[in-house]
Each structure stands twice: as structure tokens, then as C-alpha cells.
């Protein structure tokens, strides 16, 4: 997993796109920058397998001691798998946000929305301006 090859939403989710026999599949997580900004995570709600997610729309939530934040899907598609280990071990997000900290795998149904995502360099630039 190389985060430099991932695509990023302005709302800090990443998507790693793979070509499979079934078409394009996105593995989705949240960026190291987001994890650092959220701090003290205590709860995460995963989507259900089979759920339809839409680019820019909420698919779950993550809660820190201080507040609740929505998770927004970077892609259009159907949830094929979720990382069921994650809610009980949220520290994985600090240790390995781009690997073990993956949240869901989505079978992409509309590739056009990928054009809205940022590459690593553009995303880094956005974080620099926010941080």
C-alpha cells in the first residue's frame, strides 16, 4: 500500500483503486492527517455489506472524546467488505492508516466521480493549508 498512489477526497478519505475481474474496486480509509486532527478516537460505525454509497455522501461516523465526525464516501458504488476488526482496535488508524486501517471495499458503479478526487500531491497541499 503506497499512499502516494491513492486518490483523496477533500473531506480526508482515501481510495485505493484496483482493477478486478468484477471491475474497479476501491479500498477506502481516512488519511493520516485526518486521524491526527481527530485524535482520541473511541467509536467508529461501519456501513453494512451491500449498502449503496455515493460520492460525497455520509457512509459512517467516527467519534472522538470531543466530537462526532461523519465519514464521506469518495466513490459511488456498493459495499463489498468492511474491516470488522477496526471498531474494536481504533489504534490501528494511528499505526497504519493506509493499510490495516482500511474501512471498506466498494465495487465502483460510476467511474466518472473518480475525476473529482485529488492526487497525493494536491491533497498534501490542501492539508498544508488546513494545518
Amino acid at each position, binding site marked *: 500500500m503506497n499512499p502516494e498512489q491513492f486518490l483523496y477526497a477533500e473531506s480526508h478519505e482515501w481510495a485505493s483503486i484496483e482493477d478486478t475481474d468484477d471491475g474497479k474496486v476501491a479500498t477506502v480509509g481516512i488519511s493520516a492527517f485526518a486521524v491526527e486532527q481527530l*485524535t*482520541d478516537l473511541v*467509536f467508529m460505525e461501519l456501513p453494512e455489506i451491500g449498502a449503496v454509497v455515493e460520492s460525497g455522501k455520509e457512509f459512517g461516523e467516527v*467519534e472522538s*472524546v*470531543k466530537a462526532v465526525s461523519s465519514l464521506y464516501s469518495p466513490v459511488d458504488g456498493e459495499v463489498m467488505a468492511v474491516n470488522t476488526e477496526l471498531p474494536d482496535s481504533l489504534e490501528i488508524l494511528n499505526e497504519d492508516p493506509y493499510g490495516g486501517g482500511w474501512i471498506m471495499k466498494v465495487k465502483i458503479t460510476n467511474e466518472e466521480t473518480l475525476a473529482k478526487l485529488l492526487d497525493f500531491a494536491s491533497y498534501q497541499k490542501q492539508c498544508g493549508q488546513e494545518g
Partner: protein
Amino acid sequence: MPIQYKSIIDEHQATRNSATLFDVSHMGRFVFSGSDVESFIDRMTTRKVAGMAHGGIRYSLVCNSDGGILDDILVYRLGTVDGGDQFTMVVNASNRSKLWDWLHSNVASLDVTIHDATTETAMIAIQGPTAISVVNQHLNIDVNSLKYFTGCHAEFDSVPLTVSRTGYTGEDGCEIVVTADAAEKIWTDLMTHDGVSAAGLGARDTLRLEAAMPLYGHELSESINPAQTNLRFAISLKERDFVGKNSIVAAMSDDAAAVRVGLSLDGRRAAREESEVYHNDEKIGIITSGTFSPTLQTPIAMGYVHPSATKIGTELFIDVRGRKIPAKIVQLPFYKRK
């Protein structure tokens, strides 16, 4: 004071396990003088402060004549440095100007002068199981001899300061008031001690919540009567009169008014301010503060519920963003130091 220096949970645990510093200089500090001060302050507070011994400190509420809570405060009778009598009051930052106006509007013809010392002084809280020994060593003050909720004048490196054994975390500790220009020196010196770190507003909130201490704007407001707050110790009714007394006495016999309780929730999702509380399908209350407790590793909340549902163990539901989470009434405080 920032929300957090690095991590709310780390700062919370550091306060529970060693000692942390909080810059609480934003709290308002009023100094009272004049021959009528003792009776004046006593008439403004729900708790008796007249007759308090020198060195004494009391937590109290200040109400309007309808019994609405204007602020929760500490009244100090530490006297002047040269041994004269003097009262001071520490008020919430958000209520400083409201209280300033309210107090002045009640002075009338009494011999009372109030000085706002907030900006010329700083206030540093050091809290945690090792806090007292750190202060003993660094400031060369014997804080061991200070009982809880007392204070004194002291001096460190020719800097005059006041030290009180008070705090807002549920831990032992002190609050130190110094002139603003000496604050950095005191802070920096305490920070050099091994195991002492800084903590922010986020940890202050989770710590006070575990200790079940109310926060103005959440558990306390002008639409809440002291009789509802579960702070009976802060209301002295015998042989004294004070602003709001009649309304408080009347509210005490109102058996329909919601009262402050503690709740523990199933799962890990925290209830937040304004989450609704249900008994079966009936809405019976509202949450005023909630978080995930770093010490207890479970979501906790305080709120106001109908008196019929306040018994320890009562099973309820809290609507957390559209989902009804099972919860139950628990004993306050959630956390008590050993």
C-alpha cells in the same frame, strides 16, 4: 487555554495518574472590600459564607430573584497579605460581565467596592495525585497543611501569590493566583518537574464530567433552579435570607421538576448535549453533557430527568443521533479518587 495540547485522553490520564497544569486565567476574579462585604456576599449566594473562617473557600450558586442560576462560583476569605479581612470570588469567564453588572446592581447604598482583578492576574491549576508534592517542592509552600477548600497567601522567589486547595478535576491539587507578569515564571518552573505536563480544555471537560461537577451553560443556567441541581450542599436555608431563596424553597416541593442525574450508556457511542432521554416510549429528560469516559472506558452523561426515573439502576434509552441507546441511572460522581 487550547482544547488540547496533544491528546485529550493522554492529558486526562496524566491528571488522574501524575499531575498536570491548566491555565485557567480566563476565569473571572473579583476582589471585594468595604465594611458591608460579608453580609453583601452572603445575600448574593445560595450558600452561607458569612462567618466563614479566614482561609476558607466555599462553592456556591448565585441566583436572580426567580431562583434562576446566574453562575456557580467560589467565594474565598483569604484576607489581605497584611492580615486584613478580604473576600474574593472566582466566576465563570462566560458570566464575568453579567455577574459584574448583577453584583453592582445589588450594592445600592452598601459600603462595598468590587475590583475586577481578572486581567492583572493569572490563575494556574495543578491537579493530580502528585500535584501537592510538586507544589511543596517547587514553590516551597507547605500545601500539606492546607485542608481541602482552604487557601493562603504565599511567596515564591519574591513573587506574591495565593494558593488554594481547590480544582475542577476530581483530583487533589491546587490553584495558584499570581500577578500576570509572574505567571510564565511559575508555569515554566512547575513544568520542569518530572511527570508534570500541560492539559487543555478538552481534558478539563472529561475530568470534571467524571467527577460530576456541573458546567455552567450545560448543567446550570438561568432556566434551572438550584433545587433541581442535586447540589443541596450549596444551598443554606437556615436563619438567613438571600436572593432567590423563596423560589428555591418553592421549587424544592415541586415533585414534577426534572433533576440532575448521571447516566451510563451501553456500547461506545457517547450521548451529547441535547440528546433526549426516554423511559419506554415517553420522553422524560434531556442530556446536558456527555462523553466517552477515558477512566471508566464507557460513555457517561449528565442530564435532567423526571423525578420518577431517578432511582439508581433505572433503565432508560437515550436518542443518540436517531438511534435509541440503552442507558441506566448511576450514582454520581462517576469517578471518585481513592
